[in-house]
């Protein structure tokens, strides 16, 4: 049961791809529509870089909303166990959840690239995809992977902790879940802000 709490299934992949496609398409429509940017390739590259920057947050939120209830329930079940037991469980879940989160990122970026190519085509599809992949900043990709893994670990820790906390205080599971979601979102946004503010803009902000 504990092992089934987190998984990389088709539903998660579909959500991530849908998020990537909608983000990329939305950016392109914004740039090409109200902002009247006509350089399609530049618009696509910009949309893709922005999507890559925002992808860790999106993936983490998708994970939180989909796996949060199961993780909170797992945390409440583990409340009777000692702290060392919880830590060991956290490690077991982390081994699955963090690669899961990192695995969602390429699906999201691939969907973003394909939708960018289809929204404002400039070259033939394969050439344009190669162009977009070539213009993806490696630093942004690495940072996105790091942030995703960090955010996934934090989500796991927060949800298990909140589940355990709720069991200890005899709170309802829904209250624990609500608190876990709000705390996770606040923490993720705060950390992302710190990343943007403290790291070199050429790495964190996508300015190459």
């Amino acid at each position: 049961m504990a092992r089934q709490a987190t998984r990389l299934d088709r539903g998660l992949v579909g959500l991530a791809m849908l998020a990537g496609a909608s983000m990329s398409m939305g950016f392109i429509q914004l740039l090409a529509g109200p902002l009247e940017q006509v350089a399609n390739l530049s618009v696509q590259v910009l949309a893709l870089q922005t999507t890559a920057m925002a992808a860790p947050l999106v993936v983490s939120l998708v994970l939180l909303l989909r796996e949060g209830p199961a993780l909170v329930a797992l945390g409440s079940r583990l409340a009777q166990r000692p702290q060392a037991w919880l830590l060991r469980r956290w490690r077991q879940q982390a081994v699955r959840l963090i690669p899961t989160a990192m695995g969602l990122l390429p699906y999201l970026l691939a969907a973003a690239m394909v939708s960018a190519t289809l929204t404002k085509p400039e070259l033939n599809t394969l050439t344009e995809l190669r162009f977009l992949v070539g213009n993806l900043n490696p630093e942004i990709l690495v940072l996105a992977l790091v942030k995703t893994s960090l955010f996934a670990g934090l989500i796991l820790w927060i949800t298990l902790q909140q589940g355990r906390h709720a069991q200890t205080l005899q709170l309802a599971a829904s209250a624990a879940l609500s608190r876990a979601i709000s705390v996770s979102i606040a923490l993720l946004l705060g950390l992302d802000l710190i990343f943007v503010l403290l790291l070199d803009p050429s790495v964190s902000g996508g300015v190459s």
Partner: protein
Amino acid sequence: MGHPRRPLDLEHWSLLSGAAALLSLLVLGMGAQRNWWNRNLELSFRTYSAARLQEGMAVKISGHPVGRVQRIRLLNDAQVHVTLEIAASRESLVGRRSRATVTQDGLINRPYIAISPDLNRLGNRDRLSSGDTLIFENSPDLATIIKEVASSRVPLQQMITRAAGLVERRVPRSLDQLDRTLGSGERLANLLEREVAQGSGSLQGRVSRATDNLEQTLSTLQTTLVEIQSLARSSNSLLQGIRRSWLIQLLEPAGTPPLNPTPPGPGSAMKPAAGCPGGAPCRD
């Protein structure tokens, strides 16, 4: 743990493998754009300013991307040392005579480093190796060009003003003169046309009269020639009659060969006899 984990694990691992494959494709694509998978030639140059230079900017030969700027360092002598990565497959195009410049296509495109190809060294064994230095030539940037245009604007405007004044003074006068010249030419043309029309009538009459006279003269001359011919014929017959008369034969000395009974033709009287030079009578 007696629940069915196998299908879930299979799905999990297959989707995770897909993610790994996608990530590998991303890395491959990024590496292909940045020459990560090719052997590179590392060249460098020095310049006095790093303005418009940036790490990662493209390096092109004949407008084709062949590498990128790898590193920019400020040296202790305040010069800037720029290291370039060029694909080893394009190594043969770069030689000792190659020059590096910072170029920009248009006004808003990103600048790049253009390397002039050294075609003289194709086939030459003296190849550049990693760490060799290129010669950098400063190219005028947009601000310099604008400054030069601004500095040349005042003389250009003065020249245009002078030219406009000159045109304003001279052109009306020249146009008047041209107008008068054209009027004179028109009058002259009309006069010539009238004179030609008058002269051509009298000339035609004279020519027709001369033609008539000439025709009359020719007919008269033809009649005269016919008369001369008939006169010559009658004179010839008269002379023949006289030569045959007995009075002439009596007057001729003895031993004189008899006269040819047939009269010679008009041409033979003038022609000397064969074998007797100078027309002298031949003797036996």
